[in-house]
C-alpha cells in the first residue's frame, strides 16, 4: 500500500515537471525586452512614367515589450561621400520628391507584438524629367519621457524611383583593393562609379580560399549606386583566423555586365601573432649577436697561447 502511494506521488511529480517544462517553451515570447520598431521592406525600387502613380504598403512592427506611439512621414534621401553616408534633408536645387508621397495613416499606437500596414501612394508630376529620384519613408517612435536624454527611434524604407524616359545608364569599376598584410577582420573595397542619370544595382560576389584551396568565406552583397556618385563597397570577413594566407576572389555584376575581379593574396596576422613573431625574431637576433661577440673575444686568447710555445 505504502509502495503504491509512493509510485503515485512519483508519477504526479514527474508529470508536473514535464508540464512545467513544456509550458516554459510554449509560452516563451520572442519579443526583445525594450522598445523596438521594425519596418519592412527596407527599400523599394520602381520605374514609373511621368504623371503616373503607384501604391503599396509598408509594414511597421513592434517586436519589443513596450507599447508606443509612432509617426510616419516621407523625407528626402541623398548620400555623401564614397562611404555613402545617408542624409535625409533636401539638397539645394533638388526636386521636392517628398511632395510625391501621400500617406493616409501618419500616426499610430502600436502594442507589443502587433504590426500595422501603412498604405502609400507615389504620384510623379507630369513633365518630370527622366532620371533617378530618391526619398525615404520613416516610422518614428514618439518619446514620452520628460527628463534626461529622451530617445526617438526611426527606421526607414528607401525609395529608388526611376522616372521613365531617356534614361542614361553608365558605370565603371574604378578599383578593387585589399591590403596584402592585414589584421583581422579581412577588409576589401570595390569602388564603382555611376556616370548616368539613374541608379543601378551592383552585385558583388566574393569568395576567400585558404592555401589548401578550400573556400573559407563567401559574401554576396547588393548595393544601389546613385547617379553621379562613386560608391565604395566594403567586403568584410569578421571571423578571420589569427594567422593565415588566403586568396580573395570575386566578380561584380552591374548593368548587364559580369566582370571578374583580380585575385588578391592576403596575409592575415593578428596583433598578438605579430608581437610573438617580433619577440622570437628579437631573441634570435640577440642569440646570434651574443655568439658573434663571444667568438671574437675568444680568438685573441688562442693567438697568445700559440706565441708562448
Amino acid at each position, binding site marked *: 500500500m505504502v509502495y503504491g502511494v509512493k509510485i503515485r506521488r512519483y508519477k504526479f511529480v514527474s508529470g508536473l515537471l514535464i508540464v512545467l517544462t513544456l509550458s516554459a517553451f510554449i509560452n516563451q515570447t520572442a519579443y526583445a525586452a525594450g522598445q523596438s520598431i521594425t519596418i519592412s521592406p527596407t527599400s523599394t525600387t520602381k520605374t514609373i512614367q511621368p504623371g503616373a502613380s503607384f501604391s503599396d504598403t509598408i509594414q511597421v512592427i513592434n517586436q519589443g515589450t513596450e507599447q508606443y506611439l509612432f509617426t510616419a512621414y516621407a523625407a528626402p534621401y541623398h548620400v555623401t561621400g564614397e562611404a555613402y553616408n545617408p542624409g535625409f534633408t533636401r539638397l539645394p536645387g533638388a526636386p521636392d520628391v517628398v511632395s510625391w508621397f501621400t500617406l493616409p495613416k501618419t500616426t499610430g499606437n502600436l502594442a507589443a507584438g502587433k504590426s500595422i500596414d501603412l498604405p502609400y501612394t507615389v504620384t510623379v508630376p507630369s513633365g518630370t524629367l527622366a532620371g533617378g529620384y530618391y526619398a525615404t519613408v520613416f516610422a518614428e517612435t514618439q518619446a514620452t519621457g520628460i527628463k*534626461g536624454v529622451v*530617445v526617438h527611434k*526611426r527606421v526607414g524604407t528607401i525609395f529608388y524611383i526611376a522616372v521613365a524616359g531617356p534614361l542614361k545608364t553608365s558605370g565603371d569599376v574604378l578599383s578593387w583593393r585589399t591590403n596584402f598584410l592585414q589584421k583581422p577582420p579581412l577588409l576589401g573595397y570595390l569602388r564603382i562609379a555611376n556616370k548616368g542619370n539613374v541608379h543601378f544595382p551592383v552585385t558583388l560576389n566574393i569568395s576567400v580560399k585558404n592555401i589548401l584551396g578550400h573556400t573559407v568565406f563567401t559574401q554576396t552583397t547588393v548595393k544601389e549606386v546613385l547617379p553621379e556618385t562613386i560608391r565604395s563597397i566594403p567586403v568584410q570577413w569578421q571571423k578571420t583566423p589569427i594567422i593565415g594566407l588566403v586568396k580573395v576572389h570575386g566578380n561584380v555584376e552591374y548593368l548587364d555586365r559580369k566582370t571578374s575581379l583580380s585575385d588578391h593574396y592576403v596575409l592575415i596576422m593578428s596583433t598578438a601573432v605579430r608581437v610573438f613573431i617580433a619577440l622570437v625574431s628579437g631573441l634570435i637576433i640577440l642569440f646570434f649577436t651574443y655568439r658573434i661577440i663571444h667568438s671574437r673575444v675568444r680568438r685573441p686568447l688562442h693567438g697568445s697561447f700559440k706565441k708562448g710555445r
Partner: protein
Amino acid sequence: MKSLSHFRIAGVTIASLGLLSIPIAASASTATTTVSSNIGAVISLLTTSGTVNINATPTGSGVQTISNDTVTVSTNDVAGYTLQLAETGASSTLNSGANNIAASSGSQAVPIAQAINTWGYRVDGIGGFGAGPTSGQTNAAVGAIKFAGVPATASPNTIKTTATTASNDTTSVWYGVAVNTSTPNGTYTNSVTYTATAN
C-alpha cells in the same frame, strides 16, 4: 495427395493475388508543385529604454555623470545597415525652462574632454573617441574622457555601419554631463534621434 492439392490451390491463389496487385495501367501521371517563400527585408531598432538619465548632484568644483544607452539593430538586408545619431529638434542644449546646459563643443572627429556645465555623447572606437572602454559613473570627478556634441538634425553622425546582415548588433552610446553649483537645479531634457536604414 490432399496436402498437394491444398498446396496447389494456395499457390494459384497467391499467384492470382499477385497478378491482381500489378497496376493495369502502364503509365502514371505526375504533377509538380513549386514551393516558394518570399522572405521580406526588414530592419529593426531597439533600445531598452526611451530615456537615458544622466542625473547629477553638483559640487562647487564640478561632478560628472556618465550613462549608457544600448542600441540594437537587426536586419536581413544583405546590404547591411547604417545607424546615425542626431538632434531631434533645433536645440542642442539640455533644457529646463529658461535654464540650459550647453552642448560640448567637440565633434565626433575631434571630441574634447568635458568642460564644466556641458553635456555630450561618445561611442568607443569611432571617430576621435578612442578605444575606451567607457564605464558609467555618477557624481564622480570630471575626467579626461572625451565627448562630442550631438550633431544637428540635418547633419547626423554615423555611429555604426555594417557590410552585411546583422542580428542583434549592439552599439553602446554613452551620454555624459559635467556640472557645478552654478547650474540651477531642475529637470533638464534634450531629445535625440537614432536612425537606422539599410545601405
